């Protein structure tokens, strides 16, 4: 029930935020922030009653009772569909990330939403609710539902409050994810049908479907359905082209949520569903998947370098970073998987922060074009320093979270395929190139004469506080990632055990 409440709080909070607009223009954002914090506090208070999180019991994938939390209620018994939510280490991590970044997202759009604030914050909260659902749903029908429904408020956020080219971007985003979602729906239903014809029972429960027996060919096709849906969201090369547009056009909070959280649903889906449901097929496919990952790493980095739009550059860097996640997942060993999970968390913070900086610049300069910037450090040293921090984080400076993630991925990948690792490592170099050019074009270099005397306002209290949270998080992840690793470890271990048992001849 806790999990249902978590989602309900956000849903109702959204309604409340919308209504609160009638109280005052600025009310909705406060309401939204409070709602998210309440949700977070509620989750933490419920967790505090649990056995120490660092000694999580290894959840047996097909035995819900071993999970941290489990909730099941009948919904559409005719098809064996139930409201089944469950929480294990990885979902918990993702849920925490979602809530923290959600609060940050609210803060990031504190001042730049001018119209319909109530509806905006409502959409934001509903998106978060959908994402929480995705991370917790273990009924495949319910999962699909959340998967699709979270897009609608996100769509509105881009379409209504986005920048100049928002219509195109929102449409592209929605069509890409919906069309690929259709494939997942087909694959889900096919899987259920296979299970139905084998057992005579309809069931959408993850736990029932895990050990569905099917022919190699069937498994391959179904796996592909899931895979495509997830890598479109991830996004992986060559399905990434919606991302630069969506990220660039979304309002700051939208970009933060997109990059910080929504992309992770794709990675989560791969770890939770695409591989465990079809272990053999996934392993057969791993080379292709990893090749796509490597291609994404390099391709994203090369394209990021060419961009003149601040947000677009960051968006392409996401493509590059998420390539590492794909690599980590399909290397499918503990090191690489831990790396992938780390990357999900660390990238969430580093990219969210960069998008916030982009948003702040847009708010101040009314442009994202870096050719119009230059030498901003002079007028806004604090923002410059903060930007520098996140830039070096994103290029993988050891001591910060992203490094731990990328290194673990590479380490795990090396054991599987050294040559691919070598190519992926190019991402470290190309990553440095685009990251630094970002700093150079915006904050360093000759100050743009047009901006002189504009009275640009440096980061102040609220912004610095938000940034500080993320900085501390990244440093913590970089120097002592163990809590995160420990949370994910039992889950990953049991997934690995399960797939290795199944893969035995």
């Amino acid at each position, binding site marked *: 029930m806790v999990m249902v409440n978590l989602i309900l709080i956000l849903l109702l909070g959204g309604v409340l935020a919308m209504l609160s607009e009638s109280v005052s223009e600025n009310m909705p954002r406060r309401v939204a922030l409070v709602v998210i914090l309440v949700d977070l506090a509620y989750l933490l208070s419920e967790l505090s009653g649990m056995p120490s999180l660092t000694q999580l019991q290894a959840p047996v994938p097909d035995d819900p009772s071993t999970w941290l939390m489990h909730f099941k209620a009948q919904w559409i018994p005719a098809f064996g569909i139930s409201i089944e939510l469950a929480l294990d280490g990885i979902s918990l991590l993702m849920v925490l990330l979602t809530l923290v970044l959600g609060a940050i997202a609210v803060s990031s759009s504190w001042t730049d939403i001018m119209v319909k604030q109530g509806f905006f914050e409502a959409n934001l909260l509903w998106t978060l609710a959908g994402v929480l659902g995705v991370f917790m749903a273990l009924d495949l029908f319910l999962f699909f539902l959340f998967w699709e429904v979270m897009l609608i408020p996100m769509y509105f956020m881009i379409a209504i409050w986005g920048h100049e080219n928002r219509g195109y971007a929102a449409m592209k985003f929605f069509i890409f994810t919906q069309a690929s979602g259709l494939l997942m729906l087909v694959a889900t239903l096919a899987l259920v049908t296979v299970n139905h014809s084998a057992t005579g029972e309809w069931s959408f429960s993850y736990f029932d479907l895990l050990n569905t027996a099917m022919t190699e060919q069937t498994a391959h096709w179904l796996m592909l359905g899931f895979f495509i849906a997830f890598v479109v969201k991830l996004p992986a*090369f*060559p399905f*990434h*082209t919606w991302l*630069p547009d969506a990220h660039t056009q979304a309002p700051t909070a939208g970009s933060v949520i997109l990059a910080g959280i929504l992309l992770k649903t794709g990675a989560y889906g791969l770890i939770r569903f695409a591989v465990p449901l079809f272990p053999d097929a996934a392993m057969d496919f791993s080379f292709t998947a990893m090749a796509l990952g490597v291609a994404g790493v390099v*391709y994203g980095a*090369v*394209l990021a*370098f*060419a*961009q003149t739009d601040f947000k677009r550059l960051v968006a392409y860097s996401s493509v590059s970073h998420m390539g590492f996640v794909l690599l980590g997942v399909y290397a499918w060993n*503990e*090191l690489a998987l*831990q790396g992938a999970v780390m990357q999900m968390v660390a990238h969430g913070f580093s990219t969210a922060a960069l998008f916030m900086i982009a948003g702040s610049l847009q708010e101040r300069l009314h442009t994202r074009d870096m050719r119009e910037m230059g*030498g901003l*450090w*002079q007028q806004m*040293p604090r923002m410059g*320093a903060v930007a*520098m921090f996140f830039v*070096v984080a994103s290029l993988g*400076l*050891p*001591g910060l979270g992203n*490094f*731990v993630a990328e*290194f*673990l991925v*590479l*380490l795990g990948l*090396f*054991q599987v395929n*050294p040559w691919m*690792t*070598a190519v992926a*490592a*190019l991402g*470290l*170099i190309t990553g*440095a*190139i685009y990251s*630094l*050019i970002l*700093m*150079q074009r915006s*904050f*360093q*270099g*000759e*100050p743009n004469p047009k901006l002189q005397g504009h009275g640009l306002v440096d980061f102040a209290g609220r912004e610095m506080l938000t940034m500080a949270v993320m900085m501390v998080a990244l440093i913590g992840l970089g*120097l*002592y*990632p*163990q809590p995160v*690793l420990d949370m994910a*470890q039992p889950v990953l271990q049991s997934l690995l055990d399960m797939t290795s048992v199944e893969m035995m001849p």
Partner: protein
Amino acid sequence: MVDMIWLVPLIPLLSSILLMLGSATLPRVLIGLLGVCSVGAAAVLTLLVGLEFLANPQPFQLTLWTWMQVGDFSPGIAFYFDGLTLVMMSVITGVGFLIHLFSTEFMEEDASYARYFAYLNMFVAAMLMLVMAENLLLLYLGWEGVGVCSYLLVGFWYQNSANGQAARKAFVVTRIGDTAMALGLLLLFTELGTLDIQAMMGAADQQWQVGDRLPLIACLLLLGGAVGKSAQLPLHTWLPDAMAGPTPVSALIHAATMVTAGVYLIARTNGLFLLAPTAMMIVALVGLATLLMAAFTALMQSDIKRILAYSTISQIGYMFLALGVGAWTAGIFHLMTHAFFKALLFLGSGAIIHYLHHEHDIFKMGGLRSKMPVTFWSFMIGSAALAALPMTSGFFSKDQILLQAYMLPEAGPWLWLGGLLGALLTAIYSFRLVFVVFFGEAKTQPDGDTGWRMALPLVLLCGLAMVGGYFIIPVAEVFPAASTEHPAHWVEYVSISVPLIGLLLSYLIFHSGQLNVDRLVNSSLGQSLRRFWFSGWGIDWLYDRVFVRPYYRLSGTMLNEPIDAIYGLIVAINQTFNHWLAVSQTGRIRWYVASMVFGLILVLTLALQIPAEAL
């Protein structure tokens, strides 16, 4: 006391953070104090720890916490302390302290005083992490940390995009090496199951035979990192450009400490390199090639800092040569002495630049001997040590390297000869600098000579550059024992005399003018050689054509997302269908009826596909 070594990097780090947070509010005096004293405190701590260690030279390690644990992979935030560490720490904190002190005066008028010291302190902290790391991953942390600090400091005056360009070049070029090194780490962990340096070398010893393929690959990957950081061929191009940073930065990072990290890395993992003789030979050859290339180039430069930069590249080449021939101790010894005299030279040049209104061209200086006596003597001593004139610190270290190189079977004498040629060139270009800048007629007027905060470090470094050669570094336990054989005496005499010949030549050419080389220089061959050497053997040009521009072009042409074209095509196809179908909706009944008739025929045709057996 030894348990406190974690404080050594922590103090500068904290100071750095404090400076960043308080950059806008702290008074300048406090900023300077904080910056200098933190390093000073680190130096004192190092001294205390060092004394204790010397009394009881037992290597020890200290684990603060486990960095991350994933399966068998559990690198710690852990320090390892032995003689080598001590030497490095002493150099870093000692020289670092002097340079910080120097900086308080050098940077006095800069608006971003606090930012400068914050970066500089952070650098010291990162460098300390590098040398104190117990495992390669932590070493990598320090390694990248110093890289970032170097980037920040080279591009310190960010308003000039040339500086930013230089800073990015420094970072990216070294990052190429770092990536190789990272791959080396992956290989080592995958094969040996640990990144703890000592344990790893032990495991390597057991698992691998001398001459195996895997240690060779691993060593070459590590070497990749080392040549990047230490500005050796082929990744040296960043260092001359990195002179864009403030001069004390060049002294600290690009002469005394960071650039020698590659030397440290190879020395630290000597157990691995010993398993791969081919790699050792490559190290030696890289060193030799670099030292000659850089020496020739230094001879042609006119920018005082570029001369010193190439000279640094060249000197590190010597260190690599030493490592390659197995003269571990000599290599590290040269590292230390080089830190002294090169820091001295850089700080001296800093003083000149500071008081000469940021003039860099040596041919616009001249006659500074009387105007800036402290600086002059610093340069005299520094150059003497650089040229390895007898009894200076450089003499002892370089001499050892050359002699041990000579002892190497087969290739030894050739390496020695190459090293000698380098020594000759070194003497020529270092005294060329002295003669041109300090003798002859005065072309510009300095604002005065150094204040005490500049003078004190110079004087102290002068002393170190003179007597550093008599230090005994406590690294006997770290490295395998060197052979005690000595080459024939004539070899030694030749080695000693070559720098003197160089000095003489330099005097004749650049001071007394008795040896006129104009004709030689102005001949067409001389001209093209000159240009070739001046450009650093055209390597920058080559890289620009082969890597930089193609990358720009590649990313430029892909700017508009080639992949999106595929999706664009899908959209276009759908639009085409839409268009033609919409056109078909003519609005006329007759046409609609025709469509129905067509449909009827279609349906009839399909429905009448009756299987033959039914007919």
